[in-house]
Each structure stands twice: as structure tokens, then as C-alpha cells.
């Protein structure tokens, strides 16, 4: 049988373990042998194929593409006509809208631009929004007055990089390189005014779904957040003291639900009870509510409306209709449409809500979990921009309409009205740009006011950028002290990374997508609804209340809307799925049968998270060996797997109807799906960790945070960029121990660390508390060497009086020439020059007068200038180099200059390093190579790590990494450590590594026999030594070290300033003071708190106890209140104290000092 297996398998794969699973014992298990062969097909290749098709930031791109191709057209079509309110025959009509090519207007013509150009010259990467308009300007004139204009630019839409509108779309590596773009860059962000902005994925509770929850008092409620194109509302049905009430913002108080039912025409209590359910338990719970309504004397629709009318708020938008009926029609459960005045659909919806509340009341288990991922929707940039655009577009239309009326209102119109100039305003362009650059979404029309929606893309390392693109920002404010939303949800499996979350206040709230997650976009609802009816859904309109909940019939709910019921739910679901697998309906439509609620949920809305899975029939995978061979041969793509029904996307809800086997071998007959690869449950950041499944879980979380601070390569175009701060490693390496994720993401091409030979031993005592000892020779040879580039900029400002800044030739002689050494003759520092602190990098002058009347051009040479040189303030005693100087015109057409100043640093004591296992440490000391331990092979470690780092951290993965790295260097093959990869061959086993080590003459356990470099004697113990990938983190002492003897003081209090940037002092705080008091070091406190801080000499009047002043003529103190000079004493007190006394005096409080002889 072993032979059979081998013949089935591709020889390139390392599936030897399959053979090993066979029992070696002679008495062969006959049952095992006769069982059908479950050939484990290596499905790994699907992952890169998925990423090739979908990419790591595909959710952003898909969402934006959807908006640009469909969303924007829908918005314009919905608001396509601007009519004059004075003469409806005068109109402007938008016929079509499209997004042009990314360009920038210059002198009336649009110049095409590429993203790199925008980054460098602080521009917005945007494309014109072009519309075709038709307009009639003359009213009912017989003349031909209908005009058409094509491709009118109504604004500029910032373009997401790599989206279908971007110039980078579909470009290959060479073409990208020509455009100055890194091929590994994922795109998915915007370039706004030269900065890269990411619109974070926003996590929200599902819209238009019934959610059963309990409030603080333990009352059960059912809430629906309704959201349609034009209305948003939140409806809550609450059960309080056994009675049901409705909470709606438009009503001033809670309203008995039966009154609402009656107001909607459901006058018969019996029908309500029937609709909720015939079960006597339901009617029993409902009874108090019915009684309450009856007690109020409300029996008819008319009575109910009369009761409701005064409670409906007047603020309701459509002022033309007053009363409760429009509120019930438009705002109450806004997602349920009212057709021809029939409230029946709404009544049934309420009944279903009631039924679920009662279910929850009778059985607490049926409560919904708000943290369940299936109840969540991810809002992506496309949706957000679409809202923003709609708002701006409508505002623009309003403005045009106003202008139109204004012109039409004029009695004599000299010229023909041309709408084009009003359409071409800047309001859309500016609105989009401002919102994206500040991240403050303030869309009044949709009652949205959210801050911090966009962030500057973290370009600290390649992984930081990738991690940023997959980040999900929470809906909750971070201050809430609840553990529920922060906890790891089982439903996150495969969708959201279980490791990657920050520590501290946002812990568990900020999440990251897993590797294979896809976020859906909206899909056309109409065809799907009619399909449901075709498949035997009985229309709601035709059902009586009684029939609604007959046993064995399931309600069919489509995107939160009740369509009707179906008698054979499983059959219905199976048919839907079959159609989906056949590609007849969208691949992201989900069908989920909820047995408990007797409902079938069909969802096609946007924002659901889903992931691909292999379909299995009765536990047998549909993907066979030949499929994978075809994939490798390039005959198949990921999409053809989808089309052929081998793979499908499941969202979180539908996963509940599936039984998913982790591996093919574990599948039973009930299994419906098989995971593609288990390591895809992790995200990008956690994917870098080798053997994460051997680590203690928080360590992986720590590494996810630290991987983003590691220095390395940022992108292929890193040296063409002009970032404000750039950290690069001089010799970055590819990790010896890789994972499949590393290869997929491109970390092997843009690494952020070096493979250091680490000896795990104690050395010198400078290695306590996670400090590491480093080998000086390794540092000499370039280990941990990094380049820090900082940007400085200067603008030659133009002023309102037509004057302008200017750059002067540097002084070559005389005072100040020393600091102008590095300037070229044009007054700008030249690249390649060594720049030290206080050096001038631009010899700029500004006009003395910049305001007031315009200076005629002839006068310009005669105006006065004052110097505004810019001096370099870098680390003292270090030499930096001017790396690059870039000149460009900014948006206001001022000449701007960017300087990039480079500093190469070698590691020093105090610099922070970390392995990939959340084990950070600072460099404790640097020791000569000859003092370092060595093996008889001559191997000498690059750094020494204290073994105390291991027991409490339990980072076994790090030990395996060392072993694998050692095996890797000695046999010349990169070893793998993908998460959960051992069974599928994507992680090497410890046994295999040990075997290689033994073959290469090392000990199987990775320990070496070392000699002390100081004495030459053998060390007492064998030392665990081998290569571990170490990251240099951005925290370096040079940027942090700070001391002050004397320095600047704050003007107000005369106390020393605070903070390193202001050369501030180190504060002796309250707790430090308490210690000194406890110890009794009174003079030390006196010295710290006054002498070294803000001592001040005051004149105190012994008579009145107030502060006086010192008269320098009379050489004596005078009390200003007593007007006397005797009885004055001189004393010292903190200036802050004097300030306090004076401030109190200004508030009419008289603090008097009573002096006694000391």
C-alpha cells in the first residue's frame, strides 16, 4: 500500500509522512488496509493561486472597483435630473458617468500622472469624474434648445492604487518598474497630497437583521438597524415587565407594540397571535401586551393612530405629512417596503421579531451574540467613498439648482444659461480630498460623523504596510471595559487572524484579516429574489398569519427581508448551492438553514467575510490529484476551480451548515468541506512566525506587533521614495527558516532581519533581563547596520504682495561660512555632502514685508529681506549625509525642496532587537570576537542570548527555528516552519532536522561543545547554538538618549522644560518625592524641588503677609499694600508658588505668608 501511495504522489512533494502513518507492527490491521484510500492531495498550490487572483488587499480593490464601475453609476442615475423649480422644462440631465484616467489639470489640459509622481510632488492621485449631460435652457421656446455635452468633469476622484482605474492596473513587473512602482506593493491605498492614505476596514453590526439582545436591566430586546438607500433608522422591540414595547427615535416615548400593530391595520388580536405562533406559550407571553392595549381603549386603526399622532416627533423630514402614519411607513423598519399602502409585510416582520423575543424569553440560548462574526459586516473604502460621493454630488446638485433658479428668477436674462461652469466646481474634488486626507467623515445627509477613518500608510517595513492594509478598525470606542468584544470568537476561524491584535486598550478590538479572507461586495438583489420564488418560496403576501409558522415550513429571509416560507428548506438550500456551484448565481451568495429559528437565510449583501473551501461529497474531496497537476501545468486557474464546483466560498453563517475537515484524511461521510491549508487561518503578520503552533499564544501576538517595527527593506522603490522617516537595513537577509506565507507575501524578497548565529548561554552578566551580548566583529562586518533617512523640506513661499522667498548664494568667507560649507552655489545643500548639526541646508531669505499693497515688479529687487536659513538639527557628534535633494512645484505652485538626510548607524548598547517569537531584548554589551566562545569548527556566535528567556516564555518555536536554521545552513536548503504544517509537509519536523544535523556531524539536539574565548577551556555545558532570524527594531538609543544639566525653562513657571525634544529635565515626580520624604532626605527634596527648578527671591511684608517688590533705587523692599518699607523680609520660594499667590490674589483671595525665624 505504501507503494501505491507513492505512485499517486507527485515526487516533488514531501508527503513521506503518509507512508509513515502505516503501522509497522507485523499484525496488520485488516480494516485499516481495506479502507478506501484517502489520497492526501496537496492543495497548497491553491493558496498562491488564490492570492494571484484575489491578492492580499483584494477586498479594498474589489470594493473600490465596485464603486467605480457600478456604485457611482447608480448614484448618478438615482439623481440624474436637476430641474428648475420655476420652470420644470429647464433642466440638466446626467446621462452617463465614468471615471477617466488619473491626471492633473495643468493650463486647461489634463496631464496623465502616475502614483510615484504624486508621492514625490505632494499631489493627489485622482482621476476626473466625467459625465455626459443633456440640458435645456430656454424653457418652452420653439427653438432647438436641447444641448448635449459629453465628458464634462464634475470633480476629481482620488484613485485607489492598483484598482481598475489606476494606471498600474494589469501592469507587469517591468512596466511597474518603469513607473517607479514596487511590484510587491499591494496597492489598495490612496495618494492624497503626496501621503499614502489607507482607509481602514470598518467593522459594524449587520444592517437590516434582527438581533436579539438583552440590555443592562436584563430586558430582552430585538433590534433592527434599517438602512436603505435613502433612510436609516433603528427599531427596537423591547420586553419590559412582561409587556412588549417599541422604541423608535421618532416617537417621544416607548409605545406598546399592540398599538403599533393596530395602527398598521392589524386590528385583530387573534391574527397577531396567529402570526406570532399558535403555541400557547407564545400567546401566554403576549397576553399582557394585548391587555395593556385593550386597557388603553385602543381597538381600531383610527384609535391607534390618534394615540400615536401626538407622540410622533415634529422633526421628521417630510414636513408635508404629519402624524404617526408616515413615521410608521417610512422610518419604522425602514428596510421593509410598504407597497400600495399595505403594511402587511411590516406586520409580519414585527410578528417574527416578537416571536424571537418570546423565544429568547422562554429560552435564553436563542439570544444572538453581537460579537459573532456572522452578525458583522465589514465596511470597505468603496462603500465609504460611495456615501461621501453621494453626499457631495447631491450638494452639488442643490447648488446648481439654486443657481438655476437664481438665473431664471432674473427678469432679464441677457445670456443663455449654461450649467457647465456650475457643474465643474471644486466642491466634489475638495470634499473628497479633504475627507480622505483628514479621515473625518462628516456626512450630515447620512448622519455619519466618524473620525480617524483614514490613516497614513505605515511604511516602516514592508510587513507594516501589509498589516496595515488588512487591519479592521472596531465600531466600539476603546474605553469600554467589556471583555465580550475583545475575546477571541470561535467564528473568527479562518476569517480573522487569531494572533494579530495590538496590546493595551485596543486589544481584541482591532483585528486583522486572515490570509484567504474575502469580503463580499453588494450583489443585484432582484434576480435572486425572483429565483427564490421560482424555487418554491411561497410569497408572504399570499400567506395567512396562521400559515406563517406551520411546523416543517421554514421562513426564507433574503438579506434580512422576509420573502415567504418554504416547505422543504433543505432541498431549497441544496438547490441554491447547486446553482451557485454551477456559477448560475454569484459565488458569494450564501444560503444558511437555521434549524433553531426555522429560517433559511439567503444573503447577497456586501461586507460579509467569507473564505474558499474545497467541496467534499460524503467526505471525498472533489479536488483530485489531476486537478492539482493541471493547476501546476497552468491549464487551470483558481477561477476554474470555482467554476467547476470544486471550491466554493462560505461565509460565517453558512459555515454553520457545513462540516469542515481540516485534512482530507480526517474526513468522514458527513464531511461537506475540506480546508485548503490550515496555516491560512493566520494573517500576514502572524504568517512570518516559524512554528507559531509551538509557541505560547501571547508570544505570537507580541511578534505581530513587533514585526511592524522591524527594519529592513520597504519596497523595491525605497530609494526613489521621499518618506518623512525611513529605516533601512544595510544587509537585510531572507530568513533561513521560512514559511509558506513568507513566500506568498514576498517577505523573502523584502526581508526585515538577519540570520544571526545565536548561542543560548549566560555571558558576562550584561545579559540579564533579556539583554543580548553582541559580537563586535559581527557588527564590524555589517550585522544590524541600518540607514535612517529623514526628510526635511523647504518651500519658497509666494506672498500676497507679490513678493517671494529667495535663495542666496552661500558666504564662502567670513562669519558663518563654516556652516555653509555644504551648500552649492545655488544655496541648496548638495547631495553627498556630510552634514553636521547646525549646518545650513538651505540659504533662504524671506521678504521683510509680506502683507499689504502689491509690490510692482520693478520694485522687487529693492525690498528688504530677512534671513530664514534652515539649519540641520541632528544627533550631536554624528555625521549625516545629504542623500537626495528634490525640487518640485507644490499645489500652490510654490517651488518646494525636499532634502533627504541619511545616517548610517551600527548597533550600539541599548539598541533593541527581537527574534520572530515575541522575544525582544536590548543589546547589553558588545564584546570582542576573541572573547566570544567558539567551537572546534571555528563557529563563533553573533550574539548570545540568556537562557532565562525560555522557561517562562515557552517559545518552543524559537528553539525549533534554531534547530531548523542550523540544519538549513549545514545542508543548504531553506527549511519550512509554516503554522500547523507538519502533517502537510509545509513544516519540517524536529526529527528530520535532527537527522540532518547528525548527518552533518552536529549533535541531534542542536547543542555544541564550546570553548571559552577568554581562557581557552571548554565550557561546563553544551551550548544550544544555531542561526535565528533576528529583527532590528526601530527603537534606538541614539534617538532616545537624553540628559540635561542646565537648559531652557518654561516662560510661565520658570521651571525646566519637559521632553527630550525641548532638552527638558527629568521630573522628580510625586512618587519620587514621597520616597525621599519617607527616607528623610529633606535637603535633597529642597534641592530638587526648588534650587534645581525655579528658585525666586521675593519680598514679603511681615505686617500684612503679602508680597512686595524690591526698589533698586532705595535698595530695599517695599510692600505695595502697606506702602511701607520696613517690616520687609527677603525669602526664596519657588516661582510657581509666587505665581499661585498672585493668581489667587487676582481672584480676590488673599493668601498671607506668616514668617517665623528659621
Amino acid at each position: 500500500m505504501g507503494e501505491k501511495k507513492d505512485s499517486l504522489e507527485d515526487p516533488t512533494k514531501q508527503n513521506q509522512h503518509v507512508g509513515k502513518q502505516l503501522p509497522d507492527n507485523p499484525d496488520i490491521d485488516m480494516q485499516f488496509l481495506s479502507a478506501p484510500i484517502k489520497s492526501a492531495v496537496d492543495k497548497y498550490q491553491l493558496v498562491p493561486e488564490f492570492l494571484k487572483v484575489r491578492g492580499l488587499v483584494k477586498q479594498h480593490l474589489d470594493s473600490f472597483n465596485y464603486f467605480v464601475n457600478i456604485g457611482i453609476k447608480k448614484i448618478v442615475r438615482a439623481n440624474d435630473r436637476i430641474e428648475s423649480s420655476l420652470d420644470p422644462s429647464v433642466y440638466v440631465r446626467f446621462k452617463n458617468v465614468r471615471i477617466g484616467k488619473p491626471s492633473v489639470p495643468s493650463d486647461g489640459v489634463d496631464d496623465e500622472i502616475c502614483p510615484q509622481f504624486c508621492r514625490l510632488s505632494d499631489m493627489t492621485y485622482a482621476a476626473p469624474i466625467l459625465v455626459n449631460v443633456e440640458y435645456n435652457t430656454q424653457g418652452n421656446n420653439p427653438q432647438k434648445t436641447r444641448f448635449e455635452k459629453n465628458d464634462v468633469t464634475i470633480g476629481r476622484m482620488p484613485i485607489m492604487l492598483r484598482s481598475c482605474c489606476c494606471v498600474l492596473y494589469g501592469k507587469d513587473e517591468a512596466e511597474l518598474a518603469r513607473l517607479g512602482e514596487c511590484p510587491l506593493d499591494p496597492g489598495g491605498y490612496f495618494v492624497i497630497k503626496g501621503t499614502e492614505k489607507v482607509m481602514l476596514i470598518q467593522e459594524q453590526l449587520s444592517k437590516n437583521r434582527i438581533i436579539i439582545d438583552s440590555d443592562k436591566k436584563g430586558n430582552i430586546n430585538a433590534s433592527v438597524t434599517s438602512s436603505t438607500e435613502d433612510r436609516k433608522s433603528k427599531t427596537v422591540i423591547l420586553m419590559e415587565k412582561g409587556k412588549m414595547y417599541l422604541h423608535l427615535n421618532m416617537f417621544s416615548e416607548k409605545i406598546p407594540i399592540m398599538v403599533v400593530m393596530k395602527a398598521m391595520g392589524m386590528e385583530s388580536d387573534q391574527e397577531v397571535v396567529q402570526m406570532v405562533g399558535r403555541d400557547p406559550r407564545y400567546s401566554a407571553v403576549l397576553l399582557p401586551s394585548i391587555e395593556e392595549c385593550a386597557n388603553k381603549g385602543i381597538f381600531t386603526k383610527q384609535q391607534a393612530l390618534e394615540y400615536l399622532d401626538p407622540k410622533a416627533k415634529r422633526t421628521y423630514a417630510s414636513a408635508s405629512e404629519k402624524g404617526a402614519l408616515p413615521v410608521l411607513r417610512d422610518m419604522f423598519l425602514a428596510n421593509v417596503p410598504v407597497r400600495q399602502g399595505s403594511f402587511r409585510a411590516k406586520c409580519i416582520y414585527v410578528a417574527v421579531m416578537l416571536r424571537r423575543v418570546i423565544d429568547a424569553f422562554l429560552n435564553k440560548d436563542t439570544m444572538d451574540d453581537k460579537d459573532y462574526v456572522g452578525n458583522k459586516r465589514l465596511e470597505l473604502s468603496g462603500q465609504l467613498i460611495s456615501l461621501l460621493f453621494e453626499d457631495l454630488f447631491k450638494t452639488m446638485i442643490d447648488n446648481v439648482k439654486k443657481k438655476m433658479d437664481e438665473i431664471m428668477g432674473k427678469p432679464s436674462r441677457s445670456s443663455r444659461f449654461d450649467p457647465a461652469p456650475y457643474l465643474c466646481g471644486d466642491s466634489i474634488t475638495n470634499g473628497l480630498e479633504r475627507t480622505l486626507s483628514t479621515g473625518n467623515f462628516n456626512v450630515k445627509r447620512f448622519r455619519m460623523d466618524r473620525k480617524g477613518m483614514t490613516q497614513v500608510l505605515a511604511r516602516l517595513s514592508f510587513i507594516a504596510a501589509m498589516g496595515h492594509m488588512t487591519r479592521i478598525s472596531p465600531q466600539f470606542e476603546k474605553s469600554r471595559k467589556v471583555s465580550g468584544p475583545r475575546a477571541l470568537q470561535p467564528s473568527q476561524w479562518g476569517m480573522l487572524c487569531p494572533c494579530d491584535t495590538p496590546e493595551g486598550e485596543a486589544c481584541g478590538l482591532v483585528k486583522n484579516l486572515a490570509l484567504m479572507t474575502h469580503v463580499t461586495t453588494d450583489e443585484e438583489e432582484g434576480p435572486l429574489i425572483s429565483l427564490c420564488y421560482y424555487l418554491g418560496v411561497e410569497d408572504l403576501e399570499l400567506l395567512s398569519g396562521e400559515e406563517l409558522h406551520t411546523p416543517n415550513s421554514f421562513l426564507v429571509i433574503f438579506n434580512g427581508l422576509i420573502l415567504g416560507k418554504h416547505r422543504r428548506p433543505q432541498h431549497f438550500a441544496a438547490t441554491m448551492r447547486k446553482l451557485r456551484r454551477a456559477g448560475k448565481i454569484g459565488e458569494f451568495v450564501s444560503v444558511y438553514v437555521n434549524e433553531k429559528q426555522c429560517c433559511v437565510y439567503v444573503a447577497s449583501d456586501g461586507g460579509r467575510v467569507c473564505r474558499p473551501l474545497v467541496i467534499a461529497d460524503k467526505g471525498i474531496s472533489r479536488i483530485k490529484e489531476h486537478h492539482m497537476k493541471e493547476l501546476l501545468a497552468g491549464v487551470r486557474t483558481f477561477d476554474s476551480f470555482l467554476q467547476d464546483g470544486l471550491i466554493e466560498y462560505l461565509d460565517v453563517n453558512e459555515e454553520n451548515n457545513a462540516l469542515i475537515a481540516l485534512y482530507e484524511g480526517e474526513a468522514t461521510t458527513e464531511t461537506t468541506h475540506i480546508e485548503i491549508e490550515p496555516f491560512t487561518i493566520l494573517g500576514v503578520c502572524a504568517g512570518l512566525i516559524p512554528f507559531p503552533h509551538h509557541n505560547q499564544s501571547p508570544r505570537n501576538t507580541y511578534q505581530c506587533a513587533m514585526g511592524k517595527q522591524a527594519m529592513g527593506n520597504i519596497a523595491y522603490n525605497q530609494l526613489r521614495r521621499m518618506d518623512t522617516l525611513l529605516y533601512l537595513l544595510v544587509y537585510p537577509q531572507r530568513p533561513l527558516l521560512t514559511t509558506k506565507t513568507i513566500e506568498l507575501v514576498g517577505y523573502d524578497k523584502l526581508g526585515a532581519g538577519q540570520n544571526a548565529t545565536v548561542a543560548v548561554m549566560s555571558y558576562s552578566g550584561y545579559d540579564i533581563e533579556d539583554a543580548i551580548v553582541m559580537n563586535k566583529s559581527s557588527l564590524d562586518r555589517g550585522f544590524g547596520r541600518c540607514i535612517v533617512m529623514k526628510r526635511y523640506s523647504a518651500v519658497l513661499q509666494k506672498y500676497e504682495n507679490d513678493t517671494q522667498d529667495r535663495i542666496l548664494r552661500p558666504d564662502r568667507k567670513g562669519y558663518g561660512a563654516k556652516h555653509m560649507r555644504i551648500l552649492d552655489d545655488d544655496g541648496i545643500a548638495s547631495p553627498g555632502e556630510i552634514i553636521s548639526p547646525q549646518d545650513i541646508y538651505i540659504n533662504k531669505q524671506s521678504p521683510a514685508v509680506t502683507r499689504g499693497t502689491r509690490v510692482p515688479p520693478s520694485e522687487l529687487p529693492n525690498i528688504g529681506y530677512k534671513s530664514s536659513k534652515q539649519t540641520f538639527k541632528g544627533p550631536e557628534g554624528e555625521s549625516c549625509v545629504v542623500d537626495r535633494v528634490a525640487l518640485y512645484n507644490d499645489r500652490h505652485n510654490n517651488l518646494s525642496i525636499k532634502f533627504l538626510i541619511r545616517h548610517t548607524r551600527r548597533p550600539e548598547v541599548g539598541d533593541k532587537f527581537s527574534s520572530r517569537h515575541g522575544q525582544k531584548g536590548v543589546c547589553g554589551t558588545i564584546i570582542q570576537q576573541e572573547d566570544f566562545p567558539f567551537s572546534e569548527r571555528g563557529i563563533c556566535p553573533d550574539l548570545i542570548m540568556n537562557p532565562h528567556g525560555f522557561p517562562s516564555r515557552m517559545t518552543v518555536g524559537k528553539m525549533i527555528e534554531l534547530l531548523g536554521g542550523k540544519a538549513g545552513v549545514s545542508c543548504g536548503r531553506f527549511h519550512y516552519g509554516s503554522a500547523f504544517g507538519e502533517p502537510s509537509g509545509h513544516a519540517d519536523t524536529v526529527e528530520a532536522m535532527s537527522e540532518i544535523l547528525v548527518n552533518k556531524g552536529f549533535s541531534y539536539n542542536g547543542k555544541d561543545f564550546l570553548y571559552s574565548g577568554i581562557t581557552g577551556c571548554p565550557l561546563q555545558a553544551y551550548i544550544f547554538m544555531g542561526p535565528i532570524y533576528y529583527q532590528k527594531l526601530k527603537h534606538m538609543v541614539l534617538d532616545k538618549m537624553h540628559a540635561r544639566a542646565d537648559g531652557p525653562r518654561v516662560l510661565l513657571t520658570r521651571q525646566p522644560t519637559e521632553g527630550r525634544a525641548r532638552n527638558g529635565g527629568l521630573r522628580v515626580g510625586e512618587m519620587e518625592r514621597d520616597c525621599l520624604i519617607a527616607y528623610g532626605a529633606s535637603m535633597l527634596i529642597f534641592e530638587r524641588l526648588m534650587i534645581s527648578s525655579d528658585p525666586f527671591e521675593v519680598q514679603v511684608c511681615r505686617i500684612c503677609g503679602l508680597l512686595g517688590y524690591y526698589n533698586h533705587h532705595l535698595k530695599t523692599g517695599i510692600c505695595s499694600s502697606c506702602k511701607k518699607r520696613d517690616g520687609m523680609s527677603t525669602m526664596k520660594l519657588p516661582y510657581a508658588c509666587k505665581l499661585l499667590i498672585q493668581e489667587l490674589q487676582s481672584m480676590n483671595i488673599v493668601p498671607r505668608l506668616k514668617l517665623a525665624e528659621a
Partner: protein
Amino acid sequence: MDGGMSYQRFPKVKIREMKDDMVKFELRETDASVANALRRVMIAEVPTVAIDLVEIEVNSSVLNDEFIAHRLGLIPLTSDRAMSMRFSRDCDACDGDGQCEFCSVEFHLRAKCLTDQTLDVTSKDLYSSDHTVVPVEFSDPNDPGEQRGIIIVKLRRGQELRLRAIARKGIGKDHAKWSPAATVTFMYEPMIRINEDLMDTLSLEEKRTWIESSPTKVFDLDPVTQQVVVVEPELYTYDDEVIKKADAMGKSGLVEIEAKEDSFIFTVESTGAIKASQLVLNAIEILKQKLDAVRLSDDTVEADDQFGELGAHLRGG
């Protein structure tokens, strides 16, 4: 030592293998301190010449100036003359600014890529002002015929690199670029004694598994006598595996392994700056000079303070 009157010993050196860049020798009849001193001096104190100052005229390559300067520094230069050169810090001829023939060597590099093919700038492009100090010959072990040179930077069309570099004498203690040693290591010579009687109690299979337990091939089975023999004692890495194995087999004392405290096997590999054999000789020379410096320090009180008993011993002989 009889009487402890004299610490003097006469270490013996036996050279086993000698190539230009590698020497393997035995050092006997001395102790770890001497062996280690020799090792340390070889790594840290044998002087070589390396590029120390780089003046860049034109650099339009992708690597920045410091980057290239660092790479240039690490290129080994032939330094046979280094022992006789002066450190530029105590060179009288040039006031220590490192511009004279006694303490420095000037290099020039001019490279410009004019074709569409990538141009590799290598150590061969460095032109020395002194023919005795040149970048070391470097050839690919797979293709020994061709001299490739050490790559400094790669240029594409239109990029240019022009610089002047000054090489100075220095020691590995100051910077690893001056260290002539690639690998200097030693091991204690192991003494392996097999307990033949006990060994005979093992079956052939047991013998095989016991031999296999050592990661290095120290033992083997004599094909004729079927006896376990020590084939290569020096491959033994003091890993105790065989001893543990013997214990596990219940045959404790099957083999006794001891490190000979007074004999060492050295492996010295040089970077190519000086020949490996010369490296050893230079190291001995420097070690001698250092000892002389101790012995010749006239101020006995100071020497006593510094060296205590050792100082008195040195003076007393």
C-alpha cells in the same frame, strides 16, 4: 614540574597540513592559556592592511557612500608588508594623517557602465599605488581558473563610481576588517580508550548501533576482525553521545574519552591577507613582543602592581 621553580616548557609544534590559506597543526606540551593566547593574537592582534579612508568623487550607483566604503574596508588586501609598516597614528613621516608610504597605500577605483549589461565592480577594479598591497586573489571554487574578484557594487547603464581610498595598517581588535583570520580554532586532542573486554560482550548489531550513535565518524568496525576501532579520534566533538549510548545499553565504561590537557589541534584559516603559516608566525612574533614589553618594563614597582607574582617571576627568571 619538579619543584615548581620554573614554569618554562618547550612546546612542540607539528604541522599536519599546510596550504596558502589554511594550516592545521598540533601544539603539544603546553596548556590552554598559551594555546588560547596564540588564538586570540591571531584573531585580534596580527596586523594587516585594509582600506580605512575613502574619498568618493562620483557615486551614482544604487549603494550609498558609506555602504561602499564599508564594503571596501572588508576587502582583504595582501599584507605581507604589514608587520614592517607603521601604524599611521605613530608614523613620524606624515604626522599621522596617513598619507605617506610608510603607513599607507593609496587605491583608485574608476568604473562606469556604458553598456546595457550590468557591470560588476569588483576588487579587481581597485588600482593600488603599491604592488605589494593589492586585493587578494579570489576565485570561485567551482571554477578555479577564473579570477573573479569580490563584488563591490553593480552598475547599470550610465552609473559611475569613482573614488580614492587609503589603506592603513591596523589590527583586528580595532575593526574586524584588519583581522587576517577567517577561522582560528583549536581543540583538545581526545584520548579514546575502548574497553576491549566489554566491547567483546556486544553483539555485532549492538556494536553497529553504538558506532552509529556518534554524530561524527570516530569509530568503525574493522571489516576483518569485526572489532570496534577508533578511526579518526579528532572527529570526536566531545558530545558524549557514545558514552550516553553505552550507559543506555547498560555497558557503562565501554569507552573512556579524555581530553589531553596539554595538546591542541589548531585549525587556522586566513582571509588571504597573509598566508596562514605566516599568520601563525606573526602571531608568535607578536606574542613574544608583548611578553618582552612586560619583561622590559623597568619600573619594578609598577610591574609588581601590574603583574604581581608574575612580574617578580619574569624579573627573577
